[in-house]
């Protein structure tokens, strides 16, 4: 019998459950990162794991991202399933060589002899007034690289189901969360479930415009959709959840129905996941489009510290509503 009971969990708790359940069922899974054990996680995602699984499987690493990420890659090559937590993805830049040159290419360069089943996870994108080095949505950098999978959940339910799949996946998976979403609550199934990587989900049905958004932007576009609904505009919200490999089929199908498309991402606009999706829609649904595709992204600037400027740099529900008005020629 299908267990469809639900419970309310925060994003943080959902991630924690995913890790804990996978560690219980597979002893090759371990967690390594800064402050993940004794401190219970810089953002408390790994809370309680040290007590449950012990210091052999939950390891506090020194601040040396290149070292412990590379150690994770090596351990994965030899058969373990590391979950490497980066305190934020800003710090993963220090480990870029290990991720891009080692994790992503090992299978290819060994002619299929080796695999790298690992998850690199942590928060991505701006939080609150942390300025340029600590406020970057970096998914486009990772999504550029063949060999990596890149996952950005937008709800607690998706977070748990996708993280479980990511841990079981035999490829290196970049799993991006957000500081400002960890407290976000949502319904999560009580029973065991997973959500497959590389599958796009329709989060809201509508006939007038397709809005593509993922991760933190999902909540923002849901808000925009409510505003639009008051004016009688029904937005269809499409959430790819995994941006590499991108399941563009449902996006294209949606645009064929609505004939209009707005893509919303937190990252910079240039050579981004957002511009890639806009390109896919423009080329694959060209004959169905009644207006050019709109891209709502962060401004093309490093993040300023000042609160007002920080807000203005990022996408807002108002900017999304404006973009929808433009593709509907209402502005």
């Amino acid at each position, binding site marked *: 019998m299908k267990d469809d009971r639900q419970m309310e969990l925060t994003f943080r708790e959902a991630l924690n459950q995913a890790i804990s359940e996978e560690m219980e069922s597979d002893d090759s899974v*371990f967690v390594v990162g800064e402050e993940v054990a004794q401190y219970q996680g810089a953002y408390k995602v790994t809370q309680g794991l040290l007590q449950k699984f012990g210091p*052999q499987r939950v*390891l506090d*690493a*020194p601040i*040396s991202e*290149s*070292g*412990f*990420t*590379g*150690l*994770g*890659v*090596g*351990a*994965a*090559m*030899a*058969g*373990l399933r*590391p979950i490497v937590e980066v305190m934020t993805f800003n710090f993963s830049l220090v480990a870029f*060589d*290990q991720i891009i*040159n*080692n994790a992503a290419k*090992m*299978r*290819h*360069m*060994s*002619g*299929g*002899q*080796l*695999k790298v*089943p690992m998850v690199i996870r942590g928060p991505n994108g701006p939080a609150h007034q942390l300025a340029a080095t600590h406020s970057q949505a970096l998914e486009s950098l990772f999504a550029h690289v*063949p*060999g990596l*999978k890149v996952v950005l959940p937008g709800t607690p339910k998706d977070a748990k189901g996708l993280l479980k799949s990511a841990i079981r*996946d*035999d*490829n290196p998976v970049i799993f991006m969360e957000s500081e400002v979403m960890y407290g976000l609550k949502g319904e999560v199934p009580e029973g065991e479930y997973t959500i497959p990587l590389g599958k796009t989900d329709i989060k809201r049905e509508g006939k007038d415009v397709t809005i593509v958004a993922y991760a933190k932007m999902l909540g923002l576009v849901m808000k925009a959709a409510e505003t639009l609904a008051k004016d009688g505009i029904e937005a269809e919200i499409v959430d790819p959840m995994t941006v590499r*490999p991108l399941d563009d089929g449902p996006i294209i199908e949606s645009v064929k129905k609505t004939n209009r498309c707005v893509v919303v991402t937190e990252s910079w606009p240039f050579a981004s996941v957002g511009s890639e999706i806009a390109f896919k829609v423009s080329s694959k649904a060209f004959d169905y489009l009644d207006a050019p595709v709109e891209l709502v992204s962060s401004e093309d600037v490093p993040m300023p510290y000042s609160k007002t400027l920080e807000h203005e740099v990022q996408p807002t529900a108002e900017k999304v509503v404006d973009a929808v008005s433009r593709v509907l020629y209402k502005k």
Partner: protein
Amino acid sequence: MSDYAVETNKSKAPRQASKEEYLSLGRNKLMEMFHTMVLIRRFEETAAKMYSMQKIGGFLHLYIGQEAVAVGSMAAITQDDYIITAYRDHGHAIARGTDPKLLMAELFGKYTGTSKGKGGSMHFFDAERNMMGGHAIVGAQVPLGTGIAFKIKYRKEDRVCLTYLGDAAMNQGAFHEALNLAALWKLPVVYIVENNMYGMGTAVDRASAVTELYKRGCSYGIEGMIADGMNVFSVYDAVKEAAKKARELNLPTLLEVRTYRYRGHSMSDPDSVYRTKQEVEEEKQRDPIEQMKRFLLSERIATQKEIDDTDAGIKKVMAEAVEFAENSPIPPRESMYDDIYV
């Protein structure tokens, strides 16, 4: 340069075994070690020739002169142990037992190669033999080898991971981060620094503030050792001792092996700009294969005829390897999409 580092680090030369102990390795093993060293040299000479005939592209970094390092170190461990190295990796793959035919085919970019023509000279892998790759970003393999050692400890296995690197890799951050982790978490890894005196064209003393490289583990409390990389037994002794310490005590070692590459950094290297012909000729006087040959002859383990037969046999192996590579198919177009994801 203060000796403080040495005192606190207890860096030292390995115990020098006696001639009797080397002889106790047995004739078969000694002859096999000699055979493998010659095999590596002939493979490299053949590769150089094929490169000049444009059968091989890209970069080609030859191991000639350093044969005793791969052979001596791998003679001191078992096939169950892991090894991982940098891009000058032909010697390691051959010493591990990978078929030279498959390696030559990889150099030729053929579908029958070890990586189906996707890796080339710098990326030899043989997972079946726990040869975890040649890695081409300087120093990037050091955290990988440390991670493999982490797995050994995690699974409580009786194994060790030999992690080879060049002298220049010691100046990379990845090296230091990895050593700190290995010492902090007590991992069964032996770092083997093949100090061939030059990082590309830059001499060690122009790149490293401390030129006695074995001392550079001291800030992590990692014991340093030194071995003569032109003498296969010296390398063997050192690795035997370091591997034992890794297995029994989960303690890493930083082993500096002083060796010398006779050829340039790669095939395109005009080595006359950074070293003299005279220096190269002097180093050749310590040739590892000649030293081993003298040992085998003087101890009456092999006759001159047996030595000559070894060479003749290897010549045949090389001819077969080239023929195999030559006649192998190029990778089919569709194969470019293979092995990117599992």
